[in-house]
């Protein structure tokens, strides 16, 4: 009880630490959200203590003394009843207006916010930084004191981004975009949790928002965007499946199901055996081997990425765009290495089982 009362007296200044009710404040909107929270909580305390006090006093004072007692009292009082209808109405009207203003503030991202593309999929978060061409999984690095706008969509079912310390939340929906924005006010790590039930590992769909000083942000992003350059071939498959595959996954599954394009599962097998037929009627096997178009199967895959319209696999529409110029040579190599080692990178259901650095994913 004492801690309840002291927490009531906490003035909500920006960046306030956590109190009895709310976690610490780490975004520009947190202060006004908390102020609204405490206004409502105070009103609630007032009514709650008044009602409870009345209950307890009446319970004691008017306790029945014997079965023969008959009491008579007023059966109504119109003025009193109108009063306790209208006065709360005024009170909730005020709460509504305060809440609405705070909400509009939450909804409108400032001009020139830093954009991040967020993709939710069972059961992980992918964050892409279009400005740097960098991709992060399960961690989102953002600069402090900078408005950041998340443009979000889902690859499968509903998810929801909740960053409690920032007091922001928005559902992530397949087939449409939603957005939220925040401006972090303090450097540090913050929890980002999925708050819309999404199946088996819903409770493990977690990411960390790492807020860094502005001058450290750009070098970090540049490094992240070019991290593959220092890797040896053995490190590339884990890199590719974590950092590059997310651009393929809306069409190419990892579990064998057919999407807009063929599944990646078993792809290397099919390609190396030449066991693929094109809409032209040609078979891949006739293009492989010495003195043919491709020679090595690796060359065929490379062509499929940079010039996907050249050969269209039978049964598909051939709607893949070219990745010419978007992927560096070493990244294409990484993709090919990924196909070769796909069974070591995924489980039977097509879930990715390694982290970008090659350690097993929890």
């Amino acid at each position, binding site marked *: 009880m004492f801690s309840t009362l002291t927490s009531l007296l906490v003035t909500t200044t920006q960046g306030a630490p956590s109190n009895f009710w*709310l*976690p610490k404040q780490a975004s520009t909107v947190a202060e*006004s*959200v908390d102020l*609204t*929270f405490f206004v409502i909580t105070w009103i609630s305390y007032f009514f709650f203590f008044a*009602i*409870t006090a009345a*209950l307890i006093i*009446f*319970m004691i004072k*008017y*306790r*029945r003394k014997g*079965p023969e007692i*008959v*009491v*008579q*009292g007023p*059966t*109504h*009082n119109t003025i009193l*009843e109108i009063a306790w*209808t209208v006065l*709360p109405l005024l009170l909730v*009207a005020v*709460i*509504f207006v305060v*809440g*609405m*203003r*705070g*909400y*509009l*503030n939450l909804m409108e991202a400032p001009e020139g916010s830093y954009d991040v593309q967020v993709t939710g999929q069972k059961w992980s978060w992918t964050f892409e930084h279009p400005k740097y061409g960098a991709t992060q999984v399960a961690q989102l690095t953002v600069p402090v004191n900078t408005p950041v706008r998340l443009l979000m969509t889902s690859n*499968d*079912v*509903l998810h*929801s981004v*909740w960053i*409690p310390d920032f*007091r*922001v*939340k928005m559902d992530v*929906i*397949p*087939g449409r975009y*939603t957005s939220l924005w925040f401006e972090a006010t303090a450097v540090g790590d913050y929890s980002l*949790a*999925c*708050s*819309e*039930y*999404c*199946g*088996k590992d*819903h*409770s*493990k769909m*977690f990411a960390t928002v790492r807020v860094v000083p502005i001058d450290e942000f750009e070098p970090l992003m540049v490094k992240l965007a070019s991290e593959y350059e220092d890797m040896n071939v053995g490190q590339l498959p884990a890199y590719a499946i974590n950092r590059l595959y997310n651009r393929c996954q809306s069409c190419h599954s990892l579990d064998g199901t057919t999407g807009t394009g063929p599944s990646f599962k078993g792809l290397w097998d099919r390609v190396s055996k030449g066991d693929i037929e094109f809409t032209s009627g040609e078979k891949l096997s006739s293009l492989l081997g010495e003195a043919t178009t491709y020679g090595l199967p690796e060359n065929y895959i490379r062509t499929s990425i940079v010039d996907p319209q050249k050969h269209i696999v039978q049964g598909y529409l051939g709607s893949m765009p070219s990745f010419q110029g978007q992927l560096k040579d070493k990244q294409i190599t990484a993709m090919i290495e990924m196909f070769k080692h796909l069974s070591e990178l995924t489980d039977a259901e097509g879930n990715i089982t390694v982290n970008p650095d090659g350690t097993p994913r929890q």
Partner: protein
Amino acid sequence: MTTLTTPNPTDNYLNHTTGIRSWLFTLDHKRIGVMYLICVLLAFLLAGVFAMMIRFQLLTPEGTFLTQDQYNQAFTVHGAIMVFLVIIPAVPAALGNFVLPIMLGAKDVAFPKLNLFSWYLWIFGLVFFLIALGAGGIDTGWTFYTPYSIDKASSMGGVIPALIGAFILGFSSIFTGMNFIVTIHRLRPKGMTWFKMPLFLWATYATAIIQVLATPVIGITLLLLIVERSVGIGIFDPAMGGDPVLYQHFFWFYSHPAVYIMILPAMGVVSELISVHSHRHIFGYKFIAYSSIAIAMFGFLVWGHHMFTSGQSPLMNIIFSLITFSVSIPSGVKIFNWLATLYKGSISLNTSMIYALSFIFIFSIGGLTGLHLATLATDIHLHDSYFVVAHFHYVMMGSSLIGFLGGIHHWWPKMTGKMYNENWGRISATLVFIGFNVTFFSQFMLGSKGMPRRYATYDAFPNADLFQVYHIWSTVGSTILALGFVICAVYLLHSVFKGKKAPANPWGGRSLEWQCTSPPPWDNFADQPEVGDCYDYSVLEWNEEEQGYVWKKDAVHPGE
């Protein structure tokens, strides 16, 4: 003219006919009410087992004994059983069936066969839920949100049987509602105008309107979902151009009014309990009656507040937020009127009254925390968190179910003809009150501090230690709560076999059910009774010999 001094006849509805067939094919509303009561309580026990599994799983951040899939099943089954099989039918179908016709001085509801059919539909609904558990289980949450529920590859195999079960239960609810509407319109006795009805009937009537108007919408929605999952028509499936959020609109268009299907009848019960057990005329009868209708009406217009974070347009959110606040007004009116009834009353602190007072306390917290959730700026943070879990348990469990328990104790002597042990009743009701608040109050902080709902584990959070403290409190509370329920079950069962014989009117109630014997005769009243003010207790006096209340010798009977 029935009088209170009629000696208890040996013939009553319990022994009028015998044998299992006489129950399974009965058209008597009292027997159907009792059958509902038994079934609902058994379903409650089952759902309670799942609730305890949830609570013990969350004792440690990594989870103690369930896998992710098992936990997801546990909370889904707990929610689905509690909503569809327990809370929705609890007060209207179990208590309402028993009490409503007697309160009207009628021999039965308007359509007795339809009434029995409703009970069988409940049984069929239960059977389909059990099939769902056998057919691969169900892990969608009781809300069946798309596209997870239509994704056969990820959600479990029992979705379609569960949807069929919920569909059938919907019809059970619709038929009960229709029956009550017609009964209240057509079978009121001479002298009982609308504003002379007991408030329980107003609440039941308001509920019945929602049941009849809103439940068909969930029926259609569930059918669409069944078709979407089985053949794929592309209405909710984004992969086929459908809109998964559309499902949420359809679902909550029913399921928000359904919240009032759950709470309104319990409010009706509490209006009776407060007045009868404080032996004082209800204060502000008309305001309480109108507030039931107002809640029923506003309840239809607020479903969008379940979608404040679903990417709904800000304008829609603002409108839904505004209308949501309007529901708080009639709810507040009820609380103030109940308090005014207690004021200068003569309060018997018996088991029923402890439940009624618990209801006011708990519903106040449930209602006030609703303000945090109706307010847009704060809801964004609290949405889909444990704060919401705590809030709706305060309203649905702490209010609806505690109102139901209060009602059971109030009408138990009438139903069984036996008195339960009042002291054990008080102990149990107090344990339920304490256990409930310890269990669920801690969940408010859990949510506002950042714990999302429907989490099998919470070890990913850096502040898991803090969450664990609240979870331990909650689990301790749930154990106290369970103990309260077990004690309650024991003394109630004991009373059936060993309880003292109940007088016609043990509490001093004035509504018509207290004017027939306990248990009531087969056809309730030989002649349709005449009625007066059902909250005027001045005509009653205590009779030591009867151990109950009887008419004063010089009191004028209504109609005389």
